[in-house]
């Protein structure tokens, strides 16, 4: 089994805010991440796929093609956006890095070519905070 990872990035605003809680409780649980006017991050996204190398090309998948899929299905919808306001598939979700990795998985998986499986979505919210999702 071969694993190939493509790195992309996007810059976005977000806040962590539970609509059913008071501002006080949100601040108590989420701290400065609950700022009502949002804050932001440069997110680094690492998409790992797995499969076998094609005997003719030697490639699991053309990395440029994989980049095109990630850009179209994920980056264009997230880059320079407000994750809470601008992204339909995050509308009723808490925009934590954890929920974001799951949502990105769901956006990408149906669009991978035959023989190529999604293995891991890794998201760096900051250089010190990383989340990984390996599917359910």
């Amino acid at each position, binding site marked *: 089994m071969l694993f190939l990872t493509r790195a992309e990035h996007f810059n976005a605003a977000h806040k962590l805010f539970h609509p059913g809680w008071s501002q006080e409780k949100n601040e108590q649980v989420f701290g400065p991440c609950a700022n009502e006017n949002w804050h932001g991050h440069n997110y680094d996204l690492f998409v790992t796929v797995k499969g076998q190398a094609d005997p003719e090309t030697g490639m699991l998948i053309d990395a440029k093609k994989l980049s095109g899929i990630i850009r179209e299905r994920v980056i264009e919808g997230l880059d320079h956006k*407000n994750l809470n306001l601008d992204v339909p598939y995050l509308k009723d979700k808490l925009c934590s890095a954890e929920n974001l990795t799951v949502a990105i998985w769901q956006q990408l998986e149906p669009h991978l070519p035959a023989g190529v499986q999604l293995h891991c979505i890794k998201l760096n919210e900051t250089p010190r905070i990383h989340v990984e999702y390996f599917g359910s």
Partner: protein
Amino acid sequence: MENKVSVFRREHFNAAHRLFVAEWDDDKNQEVFGKCSNPNYHGHNYDLEVKITGIPDPKTGYVIDLKKLSNIIRSQVLEQFDHRNLNLDTPFFRELNPTAENIAVVIYGLLRKHISPALDLRVRLYETDRNFVEYPA
């Protein structure tokens, strides 16, 4: 030759912002600033490098105590910028566009008054890994 040494402190803050000129319509803002003018804001992990240049103190060997410098940066800059919306939550960008250039100049101004005039100050701000600015140039 004077034995001047430069010391650096790196800090970071995570903030939302939007680039736009209030007098322009949406189309013109979009044309000039592209995606950076998203009316709902976007954000960055900003990396800040503060450079202090001077002659090391003959007793302590310090140009400046870097812990004290960190505290100055934290109290004068990070507490106002970290996890904030630069356009909405700070007084500096109500009418000034929060480009990396303008943010660096503002940060310089905030720090300059707390650093001895005998020391040179320079600020470098990374908006992303590939885009960074320095002031004074």
